[in-house]
C-alpha cells in the first residue's frame, strides 16, 4: 500500500466516512474532520508511520490536507 493510500485510510477511519478527498482538499473546510477527529488523525499517523510528532509540530494547518500531511512526513525523513 503506498503512503497516500495509508493516509487516506487514516482519514476515513477518523472521519468515519468512506470518502476519498482530493489531495489538496481541506479536510476541515470540507467538513470531513472536526477538531477531535484531527487529534485522532495525528495519533494514527504516529502509529502508522512509526514517528513521534512533537507538540511543537501540532499545527492544524500541517494536517489540513493529504498533500500537507505528505509534506510533513517528507520533512520528517
Amino acid at each position, binding site marked *: 500500500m503506498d503512503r497516500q493510500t495509508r493516509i487516506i485510510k487514516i482519514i476515513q477511519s477518523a472521519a468515519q466516512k468512506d470518502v476519498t478527498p482530493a489531495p489538496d482538499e481541506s479536510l*476541515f473546510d470540507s467538513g470531513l474532520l*472536526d*477538531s*477531535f477527529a*484531527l*487529534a485522532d488523525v*495525528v495519533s494514527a499517523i504516529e502509529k502508522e508511520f512509526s514517528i513521534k510528532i512533537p*507538540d*511543537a509540530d*501540532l*499545527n*492544524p494547518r500541517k494536517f489540513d490536507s493529504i498533500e500537507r500531511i505528505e509534506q510533513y512526513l517528507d520533512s520528517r525523513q
Partner: protein
Amino acid sequence: MAFLREFGSYLPSRIVTNDEIGVRVGADFEWIRNVSGIEERRFAAEDETVASMATRAGEVCLSRSGVRPTDVGMVIVASGSAERQFPGPAATVAKELGCDSAVALDFPMASAGSLFALAMASRVAEQFREVLVIGAEKMSNIVLREPMERGVAVLFGDGAGAALVSANEGKAKIVDSVIATDGSYAEDLKLECEKPLTMNGRSVILQASRKIPSAIQGVLEQAEILAEQVQVFLMHQANQNLIDRVASAIGVSSELFYSNIRRYGNTSSASMLIAADEWAREHGFQSDIPVVFAAFGAGFNWGALVARGV
C-alpha cells in the same frame, strides 16, 4: 507540606438551556450536546460580578472549614472574565470575606487558573498557613457580546469554586504538581479588551488532547502512582469529548473522570473547583487513595496536581 482542607462553590440560579442559547446563534440542542456534552449552563444576574460570585464560593468554603477569615494568609482569585483590568477581584474578595490579614493575588489566566493557583498555594502554604484559592467567571458577559460566535457562545457558563489549602490539616495531602506554559499558542485562545473571545478550536483541542494526558502521566510518575490507583480525576470541564479523550489517552474509564459539564457548561477557571466541591460532597476522599486535578487553558497553560486522601 500542604493539605486540601475544604471546598466550596457558587452557581447562579438562572438556568440557560441549549435551546435558549442555541436559538441566538443558530445551533440546536442536539448539536450542542454532541459537540460538547453540555445541556444547560448558569448565567449570573446582571448585578452579580466575578468578585461577588467568588465571595459566595469563598464564604461557603471558609464556613465549612471552620477557619476564621482573619486566619487566612493569602487569597488567590483566578479569573479570565473580571470586569476591569485592575485591580482584579482578589482584593475585593479578601475584603468582603473579612480576610483582613491576607495578601490578595489575581491569576488572570482563564481555564488553567485555579489549577495553577492550587499548585502555587501548595508551595507557599508553609508561609501563609491558610491559602484560599477561588476560580470565578462571569463568562456570559463575554460570550453574549456581538458578534456572537456559535462555537464559543454555546460552551460557557458562570460560577465560582473555592478550595482552602492549609499547611496544618485537611481532607487530602497535596503530593506533587506539574505546571507548564507554551506562549507559542497565545494567539489561539484570547480575550482582548472589549472584543469577542476568539478561539482556534482545532489548535486548542489538538494541544489539550496531548498536553493534559502528558501532565497527568508526569505527575503520577513523579509520585509513583498508577492511573488505575486514582480514585477520581477532577479535570477542567472544558468539553465532555475532551474529557473522554484524556481518559482514553491515560488508559482509564471515563467514569473515573468526574463530570458536571452537562449542567454547568465550561465555567473556565471555576470549573475544576466546582467539580471538586460537588465530588467531595457526593463521594469524598478515601484514606491514602490518590486524586488527580488537571487543567488546560489560554496561554497555553496546563498542568496536573495529585493529592492523597488523609
